[in-house]
């Protein structure tokens, strides 16, 4: 058979001009994606490094175990704010996780109907609502009826911010699980609900965890919706019906304060907040790591 000259030319493995061009392109694209990776990672490292650099002088044991000192006194710490942030995220997760995960399951497994389309659309819109507006909503539905600011109100505001992220990632991750596992479960006479919860959900767990983490991390850094819900508190409080301090609100207050040492403490708080999120990621990764690697 005659070999097509053009194909021969393209497929030849020699040192033709085309061959060299192809290699060049390959290297070029590898370099470009490598550079993009750097661009994506460098800001994180810069922020991490800069907050540490600025806040280092305020970072000491006292910062973690002491309460804020009154204006004019130096030293003190943000123990209450750290506990406050943990409580607020905890409350938010308590409300948002069941709702978000169950809604995600509904959308993925039963959601190919008008209701599903509507819920999906609304979740997307909700995730785009400015957080300060969510704060106002929580103010109206929790703070006004209770007649005072509270950790509970802050938790509700954070939950509203978390729900769409959790819902949509849960849905996406469940959808990624191959249909064959679903069929295998059903074919064993396992009900659809059990198939979803015991077979599909564990398979999608890693991805869902990443989504939850993103939601938690975002909530941990939220300031605006806490300003008129949890308000902030310079004193020790773990009561969920009382105003509560949080790292993000402390950063807001301390960063705009006219005192040098407060500004430093704001940087330190920023560093602690980033570290917390980092730590949270690591813990989540570790807890949900698969016994078998692949999934």
């Amino acid at each position, binding site marked *: 058979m005659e070999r097509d000259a053009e194909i021969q030319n393209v497929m030849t493995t020699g040192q033709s001009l085309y061959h060299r061009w192809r290699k060049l392109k390959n290297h070029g694209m590898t370099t470009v994606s490598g550079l993009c990776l750097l661009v994506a990672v460098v800001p994180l490292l810069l922020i991490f490094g800069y907050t540490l650099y600025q806040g280092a002088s305020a970072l000491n044991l006292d910062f973690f175990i002491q309460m804020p000192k009154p204006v004019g006194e130096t030293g003190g710490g943000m123990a209450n704010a750290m506990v406050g942030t943990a409580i607020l995220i905890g409350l938010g997760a308590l409300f948002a996780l069941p709702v978000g995960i169950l809604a995600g399951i509904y959308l993925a497994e039963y959601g190919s109907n008008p209701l599903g389309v509507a819920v999906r659309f609304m979740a997307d819109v909700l995730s785009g609502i400015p957080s300060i507006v969510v704060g106002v909503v929580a103010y109206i539905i929790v703070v006004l009826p209770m007649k005072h600011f509270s950790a509970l109100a802050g938790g509700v505001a954070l939950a509203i911010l978390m729900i769409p992220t959790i819902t949509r990632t849960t849905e996406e991750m469940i959808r990624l699980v*191959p*249909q*064959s*596992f*679903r*069929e*295998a*479960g*059903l*074919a*064993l*006479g*396992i*009900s659809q609900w*059990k*198939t979803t919860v*015991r*077979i599909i959900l*564990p*398979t999608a*767990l890693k991805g869902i965890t990443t989504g939850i983490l993103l939601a938690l991390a975002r909530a941990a850094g939220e300031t605006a919706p806490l300003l008129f819900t949890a308000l902030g508190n310079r004193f020790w409080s773990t009561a969920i019906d009382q105003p509560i301090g949080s790292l993000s609100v402390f950063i807001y207050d301390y960063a705009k304060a006219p005192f040098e040492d407060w500004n430093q403490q704001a940087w330190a708080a920023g560093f602690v907040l980033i570290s917390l999120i980092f730590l949270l990621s690591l813990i989540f990764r570790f807890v949900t790591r*698969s*016994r*078998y*690697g*692949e*999934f």
Partner: protein
Amino acid sequence: MGSSETVSPPQTTDMESSTEKQPPEGHESFPAKMVAREVNAFFGKTHALHNVSLDVPEKHVLAIIGPSGCGKSTFLRCLNRMHEVAGGSMKGTITLDGQDTASIDAVDLRRRVGMVFQKPNPFPTMSIFDNVAAGLRFNGMHNRKKLEEIVERCLRQAALWDEVKDSLNKSGMSISGGQQQRLCIARTLAVNPEVVLMDEPASALDPLSTAKVEELIYELKSNYTIAIVTHNMQQAARVSDMTAFFYIGELIEVGETKRLFTTPQKKQTEDYITGRFG
């Protein structure tokens, strides 16, 4: 339909409702476990199966052959109502021991009519043991001792026990494709189904694993009713007692395997089994 040699298969008393409808040709001797009458299956507007009437003989192997897209998998999936899971719909009746499958709860039906798929699909987050135990566990059996017993028996039945008995806690994905498929067969057997449907169970396997699966099918038929879809006519000839030939959504011919392969009665069947079209 209606060839001169048609003999009504001997049927148990509770199957009278189906006897008044015309039984398919070629059922010489085997009592039916499942009876399909005038089954039409659809995917949206696509009409995938046309008026298929076919019996699945009890404790024998029914092979369903035919070219790609002829509806043989669809028919199989109608038998345990997996067809509707993929969004399809069905008209006609299919009975299991004389009871209309449409009136049986789909979950209950699938406990009685198990299925092995084309691609091995062990649950990725579970160990080999857990894979086999899954069907029982999720239906409420937690007696560890009993589970161990059943897992061992099913793995033995699937001719996999000797290969995995020391690694029951390893991932179901860690073994070879052929072993995975036998694991899936063991998993299906664990819930003690009456009928086992196999959708091209060996098509993704190498010849050695295929031989093992075929051997297994041969052994299983003393206890189970088996329907197997296959592309491979030699396989159908080797493992089955009855063979049904589907073409473009229609049942062309059904008969005892030996008879169908030696003296096919329809031109299309003959063309297909001699390889004149595909």
